Protein backbone atom coordinates (compact mmCIF):
# COMPACT_ATOMS: atom_id res chain seq x y z
CA UNK A 1 0.00 0.00 0.00
CA UNK A 2 1.15 3.52 -0.72
CA UNK A 3 2.37 5.71 2.13
CA UNK A 4 0.50 8.95 2.73
CA UNK A 5 3.24 10.39 4.92
CA UNK A 6 6.96 9.68 4.75
CA UNK A 7 9.41 11.29 7.13
CA UNK A 8 13.08 10.72 6.82
CA UNK A 9 15.65 11.75 9.43
CA UNK A 10 13.50 14.75 10.33
CA UNK A 11 15.22 17.40 12.46
CA UNK A 12 13.80 20.48 14.18
CA UNK A 13 15.71 22.90 16.36
CA UNK A 14 14.48 25.80 18.46
CA UNK A 15 17.56 27.94 19.03
CA UNK A 16 20.01 25.48 20.58
CA UNK A 17 17.43 22.90 21.62
CA UNK A 18 16.81 20.02 19.22
CA UNK A 19 13.18 18.98 19.63
CA UNK A 20 13.00 16.47 16.78
CA UNK A 21 16.14 14.40 16.32
CA UNK A 22 16.24 12.34 13.17
CA UNK A 23 12.68 11.06 13.20
CA UNK A 24 11.78 8.62 10.42
CA UNK A 25 8.38 7.08 9.93
CA UNK A 26 5.89 6.11 7.25
CA UNK A 27 2.11 6.20 7.48
CA UNK A 28 0.30 3.84 5.12
CA UNK A 29 -2.88 4.95 3.37
CA UNK A 30 -6.07 4.05 5.23
CA UNK A 31 -4.42 3.50 8.59
CA UNK A 32 -5.11 5.10 11.91
CA UNK A 33 -1.64 5.98 13.04
CA UNK A 34 -0.80 7.07 16.57
CA UNK A 35 1.98 9.43 17.54
CA UNK A 36 2.53 8.92 21.26
CA UNK A 37 4.90 10.54 23.68
CA UNK A 38 5.04 12.49 26.91
CA UNK A 39 4.61 16.28 26.96
CA UNK A 40 7.47 17.95 25.13
CA UNK A 41 8.33 14.81 23.14
CA UNK A 42 8.01 16.70 19.84
CA UNK A 43 4.55 15.51 18.75
CA UNK A 44 2.97 18.88 17.96
CA UNK A 45 6.17 20.15 16.32
CA UNK A 46 6.18 17.10 14.07
CA UNK A 47 2.57 17.73 13.07
CA UNK A 48 3.32 21.39 12.36
CA UNK A 49 6.16 20.39 10.06
CA UNK A 50 3.88 17.93 8.33
CA UNK A 51 1.42 20.74 7.56
CA UNK A 52 4.09 23.10 6.29
CA UNK A 53 3.61 25.39 9.28
CA UNK A 54 7.13 24.94 10.56
CA UNK A 55 10.28 24.82 8.40
CA UNK A 56 12.45 21.69 8.63
CA UNK A 57 15.99 21.97 9.95
CA UNK A 58 17.00 18.66 8.42
CA UNK A 59 15.74 15.51 6.75
CA UNK A 60 12.84 15.22 4.35
CA UNK A 61 9.09 15.09 4.66
CA UNK A 62 6.70 13.97 1.93
CA UNK A 63 2.92 14.01 2.15
CA UNK A 64 0.93 12.41 -0.69
CA UNK A 65 4.34 11.91 -2.28
CA UNK A 66 4.95 15.68 -2.38
CA UNK A 67 7.85 17.43 -0.61
CA UNK A 68 6.10 19.60 1.97
CA UNK A 69 8.14 22.80 1.70
CA UNK A 70 7.22 23.27 -1.97
CA UNK A 71 3.68 21.93 -1.80
CA UNK A 72 2.27 23.06 1.53
CA UNK A 73 -0.83 24.52 -0.10
CA UNK A 74 -1.61 21.37 -2.06
CA UNK A 75 -1.02 19.17 0.97
CA UNK A 76 -3.28 21.27 3.18
CA UNK A 77 -5.98 21.30 0.50
CA UNK A 78 -6.17 17.50 0.90
CA UNK A 79 -5.75 17.41 4.69
CA UNK A 80 -8.03 18.07 7.65
CA UNK A 81 -6.63 19.40 10.91
CA UNK A 82 -8.02 19.18 14.45
CA UNK A 83 -5.68 21.36 16.51
CA UNK A 84 -4.90 20.79 20.16
CA UNK A 85 -6.37 24.13 21.19
CA UNK A 86 -9.74 25.19 19.90
CA UNK A 87 -9.55 28.04 17.44
CA UNK A 88 -13.14 28.25 16.29
CA UNK A 89 -14.26 31.70 15.26
CA UNK A 90 -16.12 33.20 18.26
CA UNK A 91 -17.80 35.83 16.09
CA UNK A 92 -19.69 33.22 14.09
CA UNK A 93 -22.38 30.62 14.62
CA UNK A 94 -21.76 26.88 14.30
CA UNK A 95 -22.87 26.79 10.65
CA UNK A 96 -20.99 29.98 9.77
CA UNK A 97 -17.79 28.54 11.20
CA UNK A 98 -18.05 25.68 8.71
CA UNK A 99 -19.14 27.95 5.85
CA UNK A 100 -16.34 30.47 6.31
CA UNK A 101 -13.78 27.69 6.69
CA UNK A 102 -15.04 25.87 3.62
CA UNK A 103 -14.51 29.01 1.55
CA UNK A 104 -10.82 28.96 2.44
CA UNK A 105 -10.74 25.79 0.31
CA UNK A 106 -12.51 27.53 -2.59
CA UNK A 107 -15.42 25.09 -2.33
CA UNK A 108 -18.38 25.95 -4.58
CA UNK A 109 -21.40 27.12 -2.56
CA UNK A 110 -23.62 24.19 -3.56
CA UNK A 111 -21.02 21.62 -2.49
CA UNK A 112 -20.25 23.56 0.67
CA UNK A 113 -23.88 23.88 1.82
CA UNK A 114 -24.55 20.19 1.21
CA UNK A 115 -21.43 19.08 3.04
CA UNK A 116 -22.12 21.51 5.86
CA UNK A 117 -25.48 19.88 6.55
CA UNK A 118 -24.03 16.37 6.34
CA UNK A 119 -21.19 17.21 8.70
CA UNK A 120 -23.45 18.83 11.29
CA UNK A 121 -25.47 15.63 11.16
CA UNK A 122 -22.32 13.52 11.45
CA UNK A 123 -21.15 15.24 14.63
CA UNK A 124 -24.65 15.62 16.10
CA UNK A 125 -24.84 19.41 15.95
CA UNK A 126 -27.68 19.89 13.44
CA UNK A 127 -29.93 21.44 16.06
CA UNK A 128 -27.17 23.84 17.11
CA UNK A 129 -26.44 25.20 13.63
CA UNK A 130 -27.37 28.77 14.60
CA UNK A 131 -25.80 28.77 18.08
CA UNK A 132 -22.90 31.05 18.86
CA UNK A 133 -19.63 29.34 19.75
CA UNK A 134 -19.63 30.76 23.27
CA UNK A 135 -22.77 28.77 24.12
CA UNK A 136 -21.27 25.36 23.21
CA UNK A 137 -19.84 22.86 25.70
CA UNK A 138 -16.25 21.68 25.39
CA UNK A 139 -17.40 18.44 23.77
CA UNK A 140 -19.55 20.28 21.21
CA UNK A 141 -16.68 22.59 20.31
CA UNK A 142 -14.44 19.61 19.73
CA UNK A 143 -17.06 17.94 17.53
CA UNK A 144 -17.47 21.14 15.56
CA UNK A 145 -13.70 21.35 15.15
CA UNK A 146 -13.77 17.81 13.77
CA UNK A 147 -16.58 18.74 11.38
CA UNK A 148 -14.56 21.75 10.28
CA UNK A 149 -11.55 19.52 9.62
CA UNK A 150 -13.72 17.42 7.30
CA UNK A 151 -15.20 20.30 5.28
CA UNK A 152 -12.75 19.75 2.41
CA UNK A 153 -13.38 15.98 2.36
CA UNK A 154 -9.73 15.34 3.24
CA UNK A 155 -7.77 12.16 2.51
CA UNK A 156 -5.59 12.65 5.58
CA UNK A 157 -6.91 13.85 8.95
CA UNK A 158 -4.45 15.10 11.54
CA UNK A 159 -5.71 15.21 15.12
CA UNK A 160 -3.63 16.71 17.91
CA UNK A 161 -4.94 15.31 21.21
CA UNK A 162 -8.55 15.17 19.99
CA UNK A 163 -10.15 14.17 23.32
CA UNK A 164 -8.05 16.00 25.90
CA UNK A 165 -10.27 17.66 28.50
CA UNK A 166 -13.49 15.89 27.45
CA UNK A 167 -15.86 13.84 29.58
CA UNK A 168 -16.22 10.08 28.87
CA UNK A 169 -19.45 10.50 26.89
CA UNK A 170 -17.94 13.08 24.57
CA UNK A 171 -14.78 10.99 24.24
CA UNK A 172 -16.70 7.86 23.25
CA UNK A 173 -18.72 9.77 20.68
CA UNK A 174 -15.54 11.14 19.13
CA UNK A 175 -13.92 7.70 19.09
CA UNK A 176 -16.98 6.33 17.29
CA UNK A 177 -16.76 9.07 14.65
CA UNK A 178 -13.05 8.53 14.15
CA UNK A 179 -13.63 4.80 13.63
CA UNK A 180 -16.28 5.64 11.03
CA UNK A 181 -13.82 7.86 9.21
CA UNK A 182 -11.23 5.10 9.30
CA UNK A 183 -13.80 2.66 7.86
CA UNK A 184 -14.58 5.21 5.13
CA UNK A 185 -10.96 4.86 4.02
CA UNK A 186 -9.46 8.04 5.46
CA UNK A 187 -5.94 8.06 6.82
CA UNK A 188 -5.81 9.28 10.41
CA UNK A 189 -2.81 10.58 12.26
CA UNK A 190 -3.40 11.32 15.90
CA UNK A 191 -1.33 12.33 18.86
CA UNK A 192 -2.53 11.45 22.30
CA UNK A 193 -1.29 10.61 25.71
CA UNK A 194 -4.38 8.61 26.54
CA UNK A 195 -3.07 5.10 26.07
CA UNK A 196 -6.60 3.74 26.12
CA UNK A 197 -7.42 5.97 23.15
CA UNK A 198 -4.39 4.80 21.23
CA UNK A 199 -5.13 1.16 22.03
CA UNK A 200 -8.74 1.45 20.87
CA UNK A 201 -8.17 3.44 17.70
CA UNK A 202 -4.71 2.93 16.30
CA UNK A 203 -3.73 0.24 13.81
CA UNK A 204 -0.16 1.21 14.29
CA UNK A 205 1.69 3.61 16.52
CA UNK A 206 5.04 5.04 17.36
CA UNK A 207 6.24 6.15 20.76
CA UNK A 208 8.58 9.11 20.66
CA UNK A 209 10.46 10.90 23.39
CA UNK A 210 12.86 13.82 23.18
CA UNK A 211 12.24 13.90 19.45
CA UNK A 212 13.47 10.35 18.90
CA UNK A 213 11.56 7.25 17.93
CA UNK A 214 11.52 4.71 20.74
CA UNK A 215 9.21 2.03 19.39
CA UNK A 216 6.86 1.24 16.56
CA UNK A 217 4.21 -1.42 15.98
CA UNK A 218 0.61 -2.40 16.58
CA UNK A 219 -0.64 -1.84 20.14
CA UNK A 220 -0.87 -5.60 20.75
CA UNK A 221 2.62 -6.27 19.41
CA UNK A 222 4.12 -3.54 21.56
CA UNK A 223 2.47 -4.96 24.66
CA UNK A 224 3.73 -8.45 23.82
CA UNK A 225 7.20 -7.18 23.12
CA UNK A 226 7.71 -5.09 26.23
CA UNK A 227 5.64 -6.26 29.16
CA UNK A 228 4.43 -9.50 30.69
CA UNK A 229 0.76 -10.18 29.93
CA UNK A 230 -0.56 -9.91 33.48
CA UNK A 231 -0.31 -7.07 35.95
CA UNK A 232 -1.13 -6.69 39.62
CA UNK A 233 -1.47 -3.21 41.05
CA UNK A 234 -0.75 -3.36 44.77
CA UNK A 235 -1.17 -0.93 47.61
CA UNK A 236 0.17 -1.56 51.10
CA UNK A 237 3.44 -1.83 53.02
CA UNK A 238 6.16 -2.25 50.41
CA UNK A 239 8.37 -4.50 52.58
CA UNK A 240 5.41 -6.77 53.37
CA UNK A 241 4.47 -7.09 49.71
CA UNK A 242 8.04 -7.76 48.65
CA UNK A 243 8.34 -10.42 51.35
CA UNK A 244 5.08 -12.04 50.29
CA UNK A 245 6.02 -12.23 46.63
CA UNK A 246 9.60 -13.33 47.25
CA UNK A 247 10.62 -16.27 45.13
CA UNK A 248 8.03 -15.71 42.40
CA UNK A 249 9.40 -14.99 38.93
CA UNK A 250 7.49 -11.74 38.36
CA UNK A 251 8.91 -8.24 38.20
CA UNK A 252 8.06 -5.53 40.76
CA UNK A 253 8.10 -1.80 40.02
CA UNK A 254 7.36 1.05 42.37
CA UNK A 255 5.41 4.10 41.15
CA UNK A 256 4.37 6.55 43.81
CA UNK A 257 2.19 4.72 46.32
CA UNK A 258 1.58 1.73 44.05
CA UNK A 259 3.62 -1.36 43.30
CA UNK A 260 3.21 -3.01 39.92
CA UNK A 261 3.80 -6.72 39.63
CA UNK A 262 4.32 -7.92 36.06
CA UNK A 263 4.18 -11.67 35.39
CA UNK A 264 3.46 -14.22 32.68
CA UNK A 265 1.04 -15.82 35.13
CA UNK A 266 -0.07 -13.85 38.17
CA UNK A 267 -2.11 -16.64 39.81
CA UNK A 268 0.60 -17.82 42.24
CA UNK A 269 0.95 -14.22 43.41
CA UNK A 270 -2.79 -13.63 43.78
CA UNK A 271 -3.09 -16.89 45.75
CA UNK A 272 -0.57 -15.62 48.27
CA UNK A 273 -2.01 -12.11 48.41
CA UNK A 274 -5.57 -13.26 49.04
CA UNK A 275 -4.45 -14.81 52.33
CA UNK A 276 -2.97 -11.54 53.51
CA UNK A 277 -5.10 -8.79 55.02
CA UNK A 278 -4.19 -5.13 54.64
CA UNK A 279 -3.02 -5.37 51.04
CA UNK A 280 -5.42 -4.28 48.31
CA UNK A 281 -4.65 -5.29 44.76
CA UNK A 282 -6.13 -5.27 41.29
CA UNK A 283 -5.47 -7.94 38.69
CA UNK A 284 -5.62 -6.80 35.06
CA UNK A 285 -4.14 -7.59 31.67
CA UNK A 286 -1.10 -5.56 30.58
CA UNK A 287 -1.90 -2.50 28.48
CA UNK A 288 -0.24 0.14 26.41
CA UNK A 289 0.24 2.40 29.40
CA UNK A 290 2.59 -0.17 30.92
CA UNK A 291 4.62 -0.10 27.71
CA UNK A 292 4.57 3.67 27.58
CA UNK A 293 5.79 4.08 31.14
CA UNK A 294 8.44 1.43 30.68
CA UNK A 295 9.80 3.13 27.56
CA UNK A 296 9.52 6.79 28.52
CA UNK A 297 10.29 6.39 32.21
CA UNK A 298 8.23 7.34 35.20
CA UNK A 299 9.61 10.80 35.86
CA UNK A 300 7.17 13.68 35.80
CA UNK A 301 7.21 15.76 32.58
CA UNK A 302 6.16 19.33 32.14
Amino acid at each position, binding site marked *: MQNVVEMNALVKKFDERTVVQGLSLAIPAGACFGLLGPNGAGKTTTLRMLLG*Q*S*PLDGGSLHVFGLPIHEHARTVRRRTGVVPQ*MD*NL*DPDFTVAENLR*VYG*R*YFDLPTVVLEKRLRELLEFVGLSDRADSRIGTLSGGMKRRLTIARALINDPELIVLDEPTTGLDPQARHMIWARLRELRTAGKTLLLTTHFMEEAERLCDELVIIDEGKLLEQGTPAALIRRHVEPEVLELRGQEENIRAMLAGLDGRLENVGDTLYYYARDARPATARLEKQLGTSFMHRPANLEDVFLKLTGRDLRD
Partner: protein
Amino acid sequence: MHATLPRWRSALQVWRRNSLVWRRLMGPSLFINFGEPFLYMLGLGYGLGFFIGNSMDMPYLTFLASGILASAAMNIASFEAMYSVYTRMVPQRTYDAILAAPIEIQDILAGELLWCATKSVINGTAILIVASLLGAVHDWRAVFVIPVIFLIGLCFAGTALVMTAKAQGYDFFNYYVTLLITPMFVLSGVFYPVSSLPHWLQTVVQILPLAHAVDLLRPLVSGRPLSNAGLHLAVLVTYATVGYFIAAHLIRKRLLV
Protein backbone atom coordinates in the same frame (compact mmCIF):
# COMPACT_ATOMS: atom_id res chain seq x y z
CA MET B 1 10.32 37.73 -2.84
CA HIS B 2 8.03 35.27 -4.70
CA ALA B 3 6.98 33.77 -1.38
CA THR B 4 5.47 37.06 -0.23
CA LEU B 5 3.17 37.67 -3.20
CA PRO B 6 -0.38 36.75 -2.23
CA ARG B 7 -2.82 34.46 -3.96
CA TRP B 8 -5.67 36.91 -4.44
CA ARG B 9 -8.47 34.39 -4.32
CA SER B 10 -7.38 33.30 -0.83
CA ALA B 11 -6.86 36.92 0.25
CA LEU B 12 -10.45 37.69 -0.78
CA GLN B 13 -11.77 34.90 1.43
CA VAL B 14 -9.95 36.43 4.39
CA TRP B 15 -11.44 39.80 3.44
CA ARG B 16 -14.84 38.14 3.23
CA ARG B 17 -14.47 36.62 6.68
CA ASN B 18 -13.75 40.03 8.20
CA SER B 19 -16.57 41.72 6.36
CA LEU B 20 -18.98 39.08 7.66
CA VAL B 21 -17.91 39.83 11.24
CA TRP B 22 -18.20 43.56 10.58
CA ARG B 23 -21.75 43.22 9.27
CA ARG B 24 -22.62 41.68 12.63
CA LEU B 25 -21.34 44.69 14.53
CA MET B 26 -21.82 47.36 11.92
CA GLY B 27 -24.11 49.62 13.98
CA PRO B 28 -21.72 50.33 16.86
CA SER B 29 -18.71 50.30 14.53
CA LEU B 30 -20.13 52.98 12.24
CA PHE B 31 -21.33 55.03 15.16
CA ILE B 32 -17.93 55.11 16.86
CA ASN B 33 -15.79 55.64 13.78
CA PHE B 34 -18.07 58.22 12.30
CA GLY B 35 -19.10 60.09 15.44
CA GLU B 36 -15.72 61.63 16.15
CA PRO B 37 -15.00 63.06 12.69
CA PHE B 38 -18.54 64.39 12.58
CA LEU B 39 -17.95 66.15 15.89
CA TYR B 40 -14.75 67.75 14.59
CA MET B 41 -16.49 69.02 11.48
CA LEU B 42 -19.40 70.40 13.42
CA GLY B 43 -17.47 71.93 16.31
CA LEU B 44 -14.31 73.15 14.61
CA GLY B 45 -15.84 73.69 11.19
CA TYR B 46 -18.44 76.10 12.45
CA GLY B 47 -16.78 77.28 15.65
CA LEU B 48 -13.24 77.86 14.43
CA GLY B 49 -14.51 78.62 10.92
CA PHE B 50 -16.26 81.70 12.28
CA PHE B 51 -12.90 83.28 13.18
CA ILE B 52 -10.95 82.08 10.17
CA GLY B 53 -13.50 83.18 7.62
CA ASN B 54 -12.30 82.99 4.00
CA SER B 55 -8.58 83.52 4.66
CA MET B 56 -7.71 80.10 3.15
CA ASP B 57 -9.22 80.70 -0.27
CA MET B 58 -11.94 78.17 0.56
CA PRO B 59 -14.51 77.94 3.36
CA TYR B 60 -12.89 76.57 6.52
CA LEU B 61 -15.48 73.79 6.67
CA THR B 62 -14.31 72.57 3.25
CA PHE B 63 -10.68 72.84 4.31
CA LEU B 64 -11.37 70.90 7.49
CA ALA B 65 -13.67 68.28 5.94
CA SER B 66 -11.00 67.24 3.43
CA GLY B 67 -8.45 66.97 6.25
CA ILE B 68 -10.84 64.96 8.40
CA LEU B 69 -11.55 62.59 5.49
CA ALA B 70 -7.82 61.82 5.30
CA SER B 71 -7.21 61.55 9.04
CA ALA B 72 -10.29 59.39 9.62
CA ALA B 73 -9.08 57.00 6.91
CA MET B 74 -5.71 56.91 8.67
CA ASN B 75 -7.23 56.21 12.07
CA ILE B 76 -9.63 53.53 10.97
CA ALA B 77 -7.07 51.60 8.92
CA SER B 78 -4.36 51.93 11.57
CA PHE B 79 -6.53 50.77 14.44
CA GLU B 80 -7.98 47.88 12.47
CA ALA B 81 -4.50 46.76 11.42
CA MET B 82 -3.23 46.93 14.98
CA TYR B 83 -5.91 46.01 17.50
CA SER B 84 -8.16 43.84 15.35
CA VAL B 85 -5.39 42.08 13.45
CA TYR B 86 -3.53 41.41 16.70
CA THR B 87 -6.71 39.98 18.22
CA ARG B 88 -7.13 37.60 15.30
CA MET B 89 -3.46 36.68 15.23
CA VAL B 90 -2.77 36.13 18.94
CA PRO B 91 -5.57 35.69 21.49
CA GLN B 92 -8.21 34.43 19.07
CA ARG B 93 -5.89 32.11 17.07
CA THR B 94 -7.83 32.81 13.91
CA TYR B 95 -4.67 32.72 11.83
CA ASP B 96 -3.69 29.33 13.25
CA ALA B 97 -7.01 28.00 11.99
CA ILE B 98 -6.65 29.67 8.59
CA LEU B 99 -3.08 28.40 8.18
CA ALA B 100 -4.38 24.82 8.35
CA ALA B 101 -6.32 25.57 5.15
CA PRO B 102 -4.53 26.11 1.80
CA ILE B 103 -3.84 29.74 2.72
CA GLU B 104 -0.46 31.31 3.47
CA ILE B 105 0.64 34.25 5.61
CA GLN B 106 0.91 36.58 2.62
CA ASP B 107 -2.70 35.81 1.60
CA ILE B 108 -3.95 36.55 5.11
CA LEU B 109 -2.07 39.85 5.26
CA ALA B 110 -3.19 40.91 1.79
CA GLY B 111 -6.76 40.13 2.86
CA GLU B 112 -6.28 42.16 6.03
CA LEU B 113 -4.89 45.13 4.05
CA LEU B 114 -7.84 45.05 1.67
CA TRP B 115 -10.21 44.83 4.61
CA CYS B 116 -8.63 47.74 6.51
CA ALA B 117 -8.85 49.87 3.37
CA THR B 118 -12.46 48.79 2.84
CA LYS B 119 -13.32 49.88 6.35
CA SER B 120 -11.72 53.26 5.69
CA VAL B 121 -13.84 53.58 2.56
CA ILE B 122 -17.08 52.66 4.33
CA ASN B 123 -16.54 55.32 6.97
CA GLY B 124 -15.05 57.80 4.51
CA THR B 125 -18.15 57.53 2.33
CA ALA B 126 -20.36 58.31 5.30
CA ILE B 127 -18.24 61.34 6.21
CA LEU B 128 -18.26 62.52 2.60
CA ILE B 129 -22.05 62.34 2.46
CA VAL B 130 -22.40 64.36 5.66
CA ALA B 131 -19.79 66.86 4.46
CA SER B 132 -21.80 67.39 1.25
CA LEU B 133 -24.99 67.81 3.25
CA LEU B 134 -23.21 70.49 5.29
CA GLY B 135 -22.28 72.18 2.04
CA ALA B 136 -18.54 71.51 2.34
CA VAL B 137 -18.10 69.73 -1.02
CA HIS B 138 -17.60 71.97 -4.05
CA ASP B 139 -16.65 69.70 -6.94
CA TRP B 140 -18.05 66.61 -8.69
CA ARG B 141 -14.47 65.29 -8.63
CA ALA B 142 -15.17 64.50 -4.96
CA VAL B 143 -16.25 61.03 -6.14
CA PHE B 144 -12.53 60.30 -6.64
CA VAL B 145 -12.16 60.78 -2.90
CA ILE B 146 -13.39 57.19 -2.51
CA PRO B 147 -10.56 55.40 -4.40
CA VAL B 148 -8.01 57.74 -2.82
CA ILE B 149 -9.34 56.86 0.64
CA PHE B 150 -8.93 53.19 -0.26
CA LEU B 151 -5.28 53.87 -1.05
CA ILE B 152 -4.86 55.88 2.17
CA GLY B 153 -6.30 52.89 4.04
CA LEU B 154 -3.79 50.54 2.37
CA CYS B 155 -0.96 52.92 3.21
CA PHE B 156 -1.69 53.18 6.93
CA ALA B 157 -2.73 49.55 7.30
CA GLY B 158 0.55 48.40 5.71
CA THR B 159 2.54 50.58 8.09
CA ALA B 160 0.56 49.55 11.18
CA LEU B 161 0.90 45.86 10.31
CA VAL B 162 4.63 46.17 10.93
CA MET B 163 3.83 47.25 14.50
CA THR B 164 1.38 44.40 14.90
CA ALA B 165 3.98 41.91 13.70
CA LYS B 166 6.26 42.93 16.56
CA ALA B 167 3.62 43.54 19.24
CA GLN B 168 3.65 41.43 22.39
CA GLY B 169 0.45 43.01 23.69
CA TYR B 170 -2.01 45.82 23.06
CA ASP B 171 0.01 48.33 25.12
CA PHE B 172 2.70 48.35 22.44
CA PHE B 173 0.31 50.15 20.09
CA ASN B 174 0.19 53.16 22.42
CA TYR B 175 3.74 54.06 21.35
CA TYR B 176 2.82 54.06 17.71
CA VAL B 177 -0.31 56.14 18.31
CA THR B 178 1.50 58.65 20.55
CA LEU B 179 4.67 58.90 18.46
CA LEU B 180 3.21 58.83 14.93
CA ILE B 181 -0.57 58.84 14.56
CA THR B 182 -1.32 61.76 16.88
CA PRO B 183 1.58 63.96 15.64
CA MET B 184 0.51 63.32 12.05
CA PHE B 185 -3.08 64.20 12.92
CA VAL B 186 -2.00 67.48 14.50
CA LEU B 187 0.80 68.48 12.09
CA SER B 188 -0.11 67.22 8.62
CA GLY B 189 -2.43 69.98 7.45
CA VAL B 190 -5.73 68.60 8.68
CA PHE B 191 -6.60 71.78 10.65
CA TYR B 192 -4.31 74.43 9.07
CA PRO B 193 -1.92 74.63 6.10
CA VAL B 194 1.41 72.84 6.60
CA SER B 195 3.09 76.02 5.22
CA SER B 196 2.40 77.77 8.53
CA LEU B 197 4.81 75.41 10.33
CA PRO B 198 8.57 76.11 10.73
CA HIS B 199 10.62 74.82 7.79
CA TRP B 200 12.31 71.95 9.57
CA LEU B 201 8.95 70.68 10.79
CA GLN B 202 7.51 70.94 7.30
CA THR B 203 10.28 68.65 6.09
CA VAL B 204 9.45 66.08 8.76
CA VAL B 205 5.76 66.26 7.89
CA GLN B 206 6.48 65.74 4.17
CA ILE B 207 8.29 62.47 4.94
CA LEU B 208 5.20 61.10 6.68
CA PRO B 209 2.24 59.95 4.61
CA LEU B 210 -0.74 61.87 6.04
CA ALA B 211 0.24 65.25 4.52
CA HIS B 212 0.27 63.60 1.09
CA ALA B 213 -3.14 62.10 1.71
CA VAL B 214 -4.49 65.52 2.65
CA ASP B 215 -2.89 67.14 -0.40
CA LEU B 216 -4.66 64.62 -2.64
CA LEU B 217 -8.09 64.93 -1.03
CA ARG B 218 -8.34 68.69 -0.46
CA PRO B 219 -8.34 69.73 -4.16
CA LEU B 220 -10.87 66.96 -4.95
CA VAL B 221 -13.27 68.24 -2.28
CA SER B 222 -12.74 71.98 -2.81
CA GLY B 223 -12.39 72.07 -6.58
CA ARG B 224 -8.93 73.71 -6.42
CA PRO B 225 -6.28 72.46 -8.89
CA LEU B 226 -4.50 69.24 -7.95
CA SER B 227 -0.70 69.39 -8.05
CA ASN B 228 2.06 66.83 -7.55
CA ALA B 229 -0.53 64.05 -7.63
CA GLY B 230 2.11 61.55 -8.85
CA LEU B 231 4.36 62.24 -5.88
CA HIS B 232 1.54 62.00 -3.35
CA LEU B 233 0.27 58.74 -4.83
CA ALA B 234 3.81 57.33 -4.92
CA VAL B 235 4.35 58.09 -1.23
CA LEU B 236 1.11 56.34 -0.25
CA VAL B 237 1.83 53.32 -2.47
CA THR B 238 5.37 53.06 -1.13
CA TYR B 239 4.29 53.03 2.51
CA ALA B 240 1.61 50.42 1.74
CA THR B 241 3.94 48.15 -0.22
CA VAL B 242 7.00 48.38 1.99
CA GLY B 243 4.83 47.92 5.09
CA TYR B 244 3.18 44.85 3.61
CA PHE B 245 6.46 43.15 2.68
CA ILE B 246 8.13 43.88 6.01
CA ALA B 247 5.04 42.73 7.93
CA ALA B 248 4.78 39.55 5.84
CA HIS B 249 8.42 38.76 6.58
CA LEU B 250 8.07 39.43 10.31
CA ILE B 251 4.79 37.60 10.76
CA ARG B 252 6.11 34.60 8.85
CA LYS B 253 9.05 34.50 11.25
CA ARG B 254 6.66 34.86 14.17
CA LEU B 255 4.04 32.27 13.26
CA LEU B 256 5.90 29.68 11.18
CA VAL B 257 8.43 28.57 13.75
